């Protein structure tokens, strides 16, 4: 049977070059980078070299890069670190309704601690309106955190404009760029953000490693305590092999990005066109301002998990925003914030394409989808027009 992986927004396979970059640090170069002896010094040198290569790929300074245990940890360090550091300046934080839970739940935790939280709404495409930020921001606002692109529907936010508004009012700006770094052009200087989170395993690097970019001069309070690693912002012995794999994967992703984007956009558009040509299947997210590899659709009168199971039986791996797959009783907060009906949210399907996706893979998906939808619709008591 065919086996087609179309869930690259969840995670990607480790690329060969990243794997090879990791091996020495799992074997002979095992030293602790904090050690003074030769074993440690060698690894320290390689680690700092990796930091420099990452900084070069992102066109920032090595001192602005802090390696973390992944995107979620980077988000936590940024948000909790700014909130604690600037609590005497103000206690208002602004985020959006479509953030990843790593941001949304962190902001909600601060709200429980007494911070004021504004969660900006989004339009039907999942886009934040800059005018809404202008209205919400005030003298008490210390931080605005809005993701670069959404992991579910792929909508790319107007970060440059939003960051400029935050800065006019003296607030810091953080963006979760886990879905964009290495996937679309990310010019940190041009975007004007103060803090940015990225992750390795979304760009063919290893799991369990990410980074937080912190603009020079931006001060964070510690949220965890230990040694002086990563200038105490992320204490704990560095995940050296992970960092080496991340650096290699990031360099390559950034270098290959224009070509990868072109390849993915063609396939994505072919998939979206084919899927939305089916009866009562519609696109979720922005028609243009979306990630090159993301196709998210809702299939009317069918529930998402049953679509995933059916596609899985046909060898196709995808995800959904239905309640059954979100692990809660409610469908995806992203789709609900976009104003989708419960039925459309429960019937959502996310296809996220990757480097290895071929035109034949898309043809195969489009070949099996009509039969799968038809079978489930025949079982459904929900009739069209309801």
């Amino acid at each position, binding site marked *: 049977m065919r086996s087609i992986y179309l869930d690259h927004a969840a995670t990607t396979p480790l690329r060969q070059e990243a794997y090879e970059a990791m091996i020495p640090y799992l074997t002979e170069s095992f030293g602790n980078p904090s050690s003074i002896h030769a074993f440690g010094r060698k690894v320290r040198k390689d680690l700092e070299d990796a930091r420099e290569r990452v900084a070069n790929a992102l066109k920032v300074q090595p001192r602005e890069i802090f390696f973390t245990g992944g995107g979620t940890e980077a988000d936590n360090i940024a948000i909790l670190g700014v909130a604690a550091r600037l609590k005497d300046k103000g206690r208002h934080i602004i985020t959006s309704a479509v953030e990843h839970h790593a941001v949304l739940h962190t902001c909600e935790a601060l709200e429980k601690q007494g911070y004021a939280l504004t969660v900006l709404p989004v339009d039907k495409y999942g886009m934040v309106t800059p005018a809404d930020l202008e209205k919400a921001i005030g003298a008490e606002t210390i931080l605005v955190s809005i993701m670069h692109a959404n992991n579910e529907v792929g909508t790319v936010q107007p970060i440059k404009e939003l960051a400029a508004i935050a800065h006019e009012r003296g607030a810091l700006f953080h963006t979760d760029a886990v879905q964009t770094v290495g996937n679309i052009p990310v010019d940190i200087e041009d975007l004007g953000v103060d803090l940015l989170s990225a992750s390795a395993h979304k760009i063919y690097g290893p799991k369990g490693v990410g980074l937080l970019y912190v603009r020079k001069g931006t001060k964070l309070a510690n949220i965890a305590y230990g040694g002086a690693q990563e200038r105490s912002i992320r204490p704990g012995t560095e995940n050296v092999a992970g960092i080496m794999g991340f650096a290699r994967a990031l360099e390559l992703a950034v270098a290959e990005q224009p070509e990868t984007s072109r390849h993915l956009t063609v396939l994505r558009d072919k998939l979206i066109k084919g899927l939305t040509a089916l009866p009562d299947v519609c696109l979720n997210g922005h028609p243009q301002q979306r990630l090159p590899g993301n196709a998210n659709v809702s299939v009317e009168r069918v529930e*998402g998990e049953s679509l995933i199971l059916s596609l899985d039986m046909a060898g196709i791996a995808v995800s959904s925003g*239905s309640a059954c797959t979100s692990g809660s009783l409610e469908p995806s907060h992203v789709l609900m914030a976009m104003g989708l009906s419960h039925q459309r949210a429960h019937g959502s399907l996310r296809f996220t394409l990757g480097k290895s996706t071929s035109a034949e893979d898309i043809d195969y998906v489009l070949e099996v989808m009509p039969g799968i939808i038809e079978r489930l619709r025949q079982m*459904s008591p*929900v009739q069209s027009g309801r």
Partner: protein
Amino acid sequence: MYSEKVMDHFQNPRNVGVLEDANGIGEVGNMRCGDIMKLYIKVGDNEIIEDIKFQTFGCGAAIATSSMITEIVKGMSIAEAEKVSNRQVAEELDGLPPAKMHCSNLAADALRAAIANYRENKQR
């Protein structure tokens, strides 16, 4: 995540569709939580469930439990069928993931709703 039995019932559901000559129809669930089950029963003069069909909008567990209950109660008296619980349906499927036990395990409720509807119809 799902047992082989659940996957079998999901893939090859028994008794799917609308029962044109049903004399009891039960519908439970709602679109908010994403599960809607509709059960059709044809009860004979001897109070035996002679035929049963279902239509379900929902996840794999919702479809499998609907299919399973039709197998369990077909040919049963309504008095006996009423005693079948959601837990029993899940057990017959070799269990369901814990998260599915409360949200998608409604087939017995749908059956009781269909039996109640049959009794109402009969009194008219």
